[in-house]
């Protein structure tokens, strides 16, 4: 593309290019730096990141989906291959068993030995398999998986809003991880070496690299060139580009847009899976967590390549992979490297993608979308709370949760209920940000965690008394939220999801894995008042009622969480009903129009991030106080993804949705019931969560609460007799001309002086036959109705009635 460049465009490409060149010059000039940057391990990691990134670009070009599960596919393929090599087994994801409830009921009845036939967990191909058959089988599996993703998930979503696509890909990510954890637990799996290359060093002059690493790098480069040729030089590529513009474009070229998308999905899963397998072989190991997290550098690289250029994507991916070992070296050897508690700050290598993302987005982004740029698309409808719901909802919820929670529930159920309550808080923070203003944040538990660690530090080391650290923690979360909001001012939709995900992954390492902050081996303790501490087993007498049965968890912890949930629930419901809420929803549906209506889009976005982070921060503080110590695992990025998933499942646009989400959340009441009553193992939480997310995104984009609401409305519509005369529906020709006619005589030139007089123009001098002077309070319905009477016969009679009802 040759387009004339303005000075600022030149600056936008020139400055980053200069920075990159300068950094490379420094690295090349120093021997140590060079050796660590151009290391075999760095190249291998770069190759894997590049393959994932290429897969991401391929699917984006083919179907417009930014596949956040791309890296998880690499991990999954490596597991399939490793299991085939080691045991000759092709493991299968858990499949739903229609007979299982029978077994559950019999077990409930007391006969634990009863078992119905179950699906196989794997297909055996004899003993350990050779390299080639295992590879081919694993790749066939990848191809099939790509096809399933297309047919079952992303084809139904092809016209869906960006949010639904992001949610679906997060669901796939969680599902793949959960299947692997279910089958192999979280421990590292050994992967055998590749047969045709080994670990002998090859000297390439500038640096040394092992044979197998060199092989992997060359393979990726070949793949990148092949993809470039396929997409840039073949009819297939032309058709994909045409289809991206317009489905008809591909049809004209004789291709089916649907088949093209399917082909790109298969292509991307195979490319990603292949490199997942090879890099796992080179590293001799695979685990369920390391590879999926590589989606962050991979998506960063794809972003550098504008989700189109294979060359830039590959280059950036290698750079992002190779900097890891350099940064580790710098941390160990350089005195200027940032230190925390005498040790180098961990996770600086994860800050690099974040910086790159923010830089790229800041340079390319627009503070308001240009003409034709779509926002996150339609989000679930966000109902304003009805007065009765506001009056009785909070107390109702409190009573329903409180009485059983304090007096009747078993300890395990009490724990589940408390998890639900803290889950509701996090979901509420997502409701504000995604449900109200349409910004996708995948970093909500990072805000919560920052707050939790603040609480730990202030309560234990600085002696702050009980409620104060909550406010301080929430304040820290707000600061972080506002920082994250800054890129959100210029980017939207999936790009924002990527930026927040990179932020979450970086915070995981830089803050939560930082022994100076997390308290190292002992963890960070929170000085909790005995009354609130979950482990407290004392019983208490209040007004002659005994609370507590001498077992953990302490019922008063539950009461504390409940108070917070009700307070925050009201806060969010009030926000929706307020002017700020209307402005947020206006921004959500159309940023340009909101700005034109005088809404300061940037300020309201920052405000929303602040409110959302505040809620998440209070949630983090509650979690800290509840358990009395803070461990990073509650706040890692995958927890953010999980909460996002459950908030979306519950219904992302309302308080009811957040409550539903809290019931579904891992460890919450829903799963405790399944676990306690039906004996469902814990690993199924994520599995069902991931699957549920995909299914919800595909079938029912409004979430559970949204679905219930639409069903209820439909039911009410069916039960209620049709309104006798509903102007817009009763008059088919209710075009602008018709509906405007009634009011025509309302604004006679001589009486209407709106800029000076604040009162609505009352048709005192109106030339309408029966427009008698009407009281100031409600001039509209009567006047317009009577005026309408003289003009439009069909809708006239109905107008005042409807307008009156509306008031």
């Amino acid at each position, binding site marked *: 593309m040759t387009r004339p460049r303005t000075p600022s465009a030149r600056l936008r490409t020139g400055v980053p290019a200069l920075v990159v060149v300068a950094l490379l010059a420094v690295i090349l000039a120093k021997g140590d730096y060079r050796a660590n940057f151009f290391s075999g391990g760095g190249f291998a990691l770069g190759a894997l990141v590049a393959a994932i990134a290429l897969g991401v670009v391929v699917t984006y070009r083919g179907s417009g989906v930014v596949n956040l599960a791309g890296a998880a596919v690499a991990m999954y393929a490596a597991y399939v291959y490793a299991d085939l090599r080691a045991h000759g087994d092709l493991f299968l994801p858990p499949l739903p068993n229609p007979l299982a409830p029978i077994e559950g009921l019999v077990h409930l009845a007391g006969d634990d030995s009863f078992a119905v036939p179950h699906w196989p967990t794997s297909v055996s191909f004899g003993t350990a398999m050779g390299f080639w058959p295992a590879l081919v089988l694993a790749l066939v599996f990848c191809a099939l998986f790509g096809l399933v993703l297309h047919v079952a998930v992303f084809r139904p979503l092809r016209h869906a809003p960006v949010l639904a696509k992001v949610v679906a890909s997060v669901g796939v990510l969680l599902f793949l991880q959960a299947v692997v954890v279910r089958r192999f637990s979280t421990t590292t799996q050994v992967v055998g070496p590749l047969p045709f290359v080994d670990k002998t060093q090859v000297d390439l002059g500038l640096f040394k690299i092992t044979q197998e690493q060199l092989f992997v790098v060359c393979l990726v480069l070949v793949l990148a060139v092949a993809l470039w040729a396929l997409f840039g030089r073949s009819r297939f590529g032309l058709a994909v580009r045409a289809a991206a513009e317009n489905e008809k474009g591909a049809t004209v070229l004789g291709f089916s847009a649907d088949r093209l998308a399917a082909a790109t999905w298969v292509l991307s899963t195979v490319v990603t899976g292949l490199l997942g397998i090879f890099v796992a072989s080179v590293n001799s190991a695979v685990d369920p967590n390391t590879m999926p997290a590589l989606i962050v550098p991979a998506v960063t690289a794809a972003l550098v390549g504008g989700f189109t250029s294979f060359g830039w994507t590959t280059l950036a991916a290698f750079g992002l992979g190779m900097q890891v070992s350099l940064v580790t070296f710098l941390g160990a050897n350089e005195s200027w490297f940032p230190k925390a508690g005498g040790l180098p700050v961990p996770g600086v290598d994860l800050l690099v993608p974040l910086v790159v993302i923010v830089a790229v987005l800041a340079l390319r982004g627009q503070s308001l979308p240009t003409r034709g740029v779509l926002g996150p698309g339609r989000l679930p409808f966000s109902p304003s709370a009805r007065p009765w719901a506001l009056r009785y909802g909070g107390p109702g919820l409190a009573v329903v949760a409180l009485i059983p929670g304090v007096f009747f529930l078993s300890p395990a159920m009490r724990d589940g209920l408390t998890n639900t309550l803290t889950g509701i808080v996090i979901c509420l923070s997502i409701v504000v940000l995604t449900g109200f203003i349409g910004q996708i944040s995948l970093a909500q538990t990072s805000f919560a965690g920052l707050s939790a660690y603040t609480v730990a530090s202030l309560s234990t080391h600085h002696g702050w008394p009980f409620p104060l650290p909550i406010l301080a923690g929430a304040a820290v979360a707000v600061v972080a939220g506002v920082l994250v909001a800054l890129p959100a001012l210029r980017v939207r939709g999936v790009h924002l999801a990527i930026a927040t995900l990179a932020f979450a992954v970086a915070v995981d390492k830089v803050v939560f894995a930082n022994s100076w902050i997390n308290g190292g081996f002992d963890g960070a303790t929170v000085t909790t008042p005995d009354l609130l501490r979950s482990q407290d087993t004392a019983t208490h007498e209040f007004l002659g009622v005994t609370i507590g049965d001498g077992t953990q968890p302490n019922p008063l912890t539950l009461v504390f969480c409940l108070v917070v949930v009700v307070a925050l629930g009201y806060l969010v419901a009030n926000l929706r009903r307020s002017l700020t809420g209307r402005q947020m929803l206006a921004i959500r549906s159309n940023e340009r129009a909101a700005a034109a209506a005088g809404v300061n889009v940037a300020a309201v976005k920052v405000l929303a991030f602040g409110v959302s982070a505040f809620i998440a921060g209070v949630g983090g503080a509650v979690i800290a106080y509840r358990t009395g110590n803070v461990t990073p695992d509650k706040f890692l990025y995958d927890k953010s993804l999980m909460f996002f998933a459950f908030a979306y499942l519950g219904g992302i646009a309302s308080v009811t949705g957040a409550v539903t989400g809290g019931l579904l959340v891992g460890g919450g009441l829903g799963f405790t019931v399944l676990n306690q009553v039906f004996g469902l193992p814990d690993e199924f939480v994520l599995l069902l969560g991931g699957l549920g997310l995909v299914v919800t995104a595909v079938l029912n984009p409004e979430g559970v609460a949204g679905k219930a609401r639409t069903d209820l409305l439909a039911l009410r519509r069916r039960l209620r007799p049709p309104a006798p005369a509903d102007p817009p529906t009763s008059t088919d020709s209710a075009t602008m001309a018709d509906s405007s006619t009634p009011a025509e005589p309302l604004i006679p030139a001589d009486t209407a002086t709106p800029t000076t007089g604040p009162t609505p123009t009352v048709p005192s001098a109106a030339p309408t036959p029966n427009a008698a002077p009407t009281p100031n309070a409600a001039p509209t319905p009567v006047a317009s109705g009577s005026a309408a009477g003289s003009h439009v016969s069909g809708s006239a009679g109905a107008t*005042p009635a409807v307008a009156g009802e509306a008031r």
Partner: protein
Amino acid sequence: MTELLRTEAMSVVYGGLHAVNGLDLRVDEGRLVGLIGPNGAGKTSFIDGISGFTRTQGAIHFRGRRVDREPAHRRARLGLGRTWQSLELFEDLTVRENLQVGAERQTVGGFLLDLVRPGRQRDQTDVDWALDVLGIAHLADRLPTEISHGQRKLVGAGRTLAARPALICMDEPAAGLDTTESEQFGRRLRRIVDAGVSILLVDHDMGLVMGVCDEVYVIEFGTRIAHGTPAQVVADEKVRAAYLGTKAAS
């Protein structure tokens, strides 16, 4: 006559394309000014430029202030309203709420108070007035998705009107209306102007623009080719050429 809006050598440049090229235009208080031109003449780019949705060169004066570096929302608050060709209503808000977003201004104190008492009585005068002027009060509690296209157009105009602007720039408001509807719409515009709001009407419906406007600017390829009363403009050779040319092409 008091000057409301004046552009001086205003240009909108996309890459190397001058969508608007050094346009001088003036709207006085209480006037209904038309801006016409064939497709691609730069009409929407001009509106985007003065309302702050695209970067411009040259000067834009509004109510005696230079506003060409002000962000879009601040220009709206100064009284420079606009409507959209594609309406761009807030689909998730009721008609009344749509208008409220246009009419109400938030403060820090108001935000905090909102969290405690969101339902408190607010001044609805401007919203009710706009609903009245456009005759859509009976639709106030409906969602934009539940009403007809013509009514949606009125809601779009109402949202702008509820902010009590001094000037409304209307981007092709009559698109999709037949001749009778368009005539009625023209009378409605006249009433808005009589109520003290000036209008810059951008359209390519010659009948509408020539019928209601006090003065008309004609642009082609981003440049002004004629300016004057409707009668003067219709008589202009260049205008005839431009319009006949368009018709021949389409």
